[in-house]
């Protein structure tokens, strides 16, 4: 948005827009790992909640570890490893399974 007619933009990747302070960001990273950990094991991956690393720590259940910059990279990696995208509307997440 133009700086004259728009409102200020939240800096950083859009998923990090809701955490303005260092404390908020740390808490958000821990929470993000918790949410990912509820999903990724279905796709052969594991997420870590280490607050000391700014990226997203992901390891494959079969071995190997990656530090990814943002969630877009997480979903791309999960798709590559499992042969299909992580679909939040998969029956295992909608309770229809």
């Amino acid at each position, binding site marked *: *948005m*133009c700086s*004259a*007619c*728009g*409102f*200020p*933009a*939240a800096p950083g990747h*859009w*998923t990090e*827009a*809701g*955490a*303005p*302070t260092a404390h*908020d960001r740390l808490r*958000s990273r821990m*929470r*993000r790992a*918790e*949410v*990912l*950990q*509820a*999903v990724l094991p279905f796709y052969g991956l594991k997420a870590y909640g280490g607050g000391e690393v700014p990226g997203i720590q992901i390891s494959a259940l079969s071995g190997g570890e990656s530090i990814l910059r943002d*969630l*877009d990279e997480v*979903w*791309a990696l999960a*798709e590559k490893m499992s042969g299909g*995208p*992580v*679909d*939040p*509307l998969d029956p295992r*997440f*909608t*309770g*229809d399974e």
Partner: protein
Amino acid sequence: MNAAEGRIRLTVLGGYLGSGKTTWLRHQLHEGRLRGAHVIVNEAAETPVDDALLGRSSTLSVLAGGCVCCAARQDLIDLLRRISDERSKVEGGAARLEQIVLETSGLADPGPIVEAIRSDPVLVYHVVVSEVIVAVDALHSLSQLRGEPLGRRQIEVADRLIVTKVDQVAQGPLQTLLATLSCLNPGAGLSGAVQGVDSPLPDFSEAEPERLPETDQLSPKAPVTPVRLHLDDSIDWTAFTVWLSALLHARGDDIVRVKGVVRTPTGRLLLQTVRKVVQTPEILPEQGDMREDNMIVVIGRGYKAEHLRRSLQYFARRSD
């Protein structure tokens, strides 16, 4: 006497979901190009968002909960009659409303709107449709045109096409798009814009237009419909972003648009997506109508509303 003959000039601003209508309009209002205009914003969902962006600029009415080309057409006619009636009561020396800008929902076909206004026995004496402007998303519209008959109908009825986001595409595809638009609607004026600011378009006289399939040959798709998702206290921003980013990655071709205002520790964040592209959230001030905060509208096809809700709850549940 000009063509309007004392009637209110009505500009219809249309364009597909996420094509940049509000961004363009906001900048025009900021630049004072539509000074004194009454702005009407129509949103297909019952959650108006665009008024949060335009509200500080002009006289504004919101028609939410249906497209004015179909379900909410009578609401539009009634509103225009009321505006006309109030204008008629203005005393001779006082300034009278001269212009209305109607921003349609992204699901609206401007054709039936124009037809409804022109054929209304009352409005015909008060309102004249002076221009139909249609915003065209340089990034997504070629793929939309291949599969969405609505996108083509919007372009075909335009007097003027504003090609938005021209800074986000390479010259070759942009020239192909311009040649295609020129083929679909040779009479329409063409101009470019970036964040609402005029931007020059490349020469496309040598470019080949895309060969689009006939609309009757397109495989029938489920209609695009809006779903409202309430982010209650159990849904935190972080869980929501994990969920939404996965959803867009997996189904970005079917989730055409997501928008809403979310309350976070940063403040009120305006969230907007167009297919897989998420705009950097804007931080809105703590003012205006905040009753629809934390109500997200998801516009798309190929899923059930209940599945969206249950899936989001799954992502947001806590392990302790």
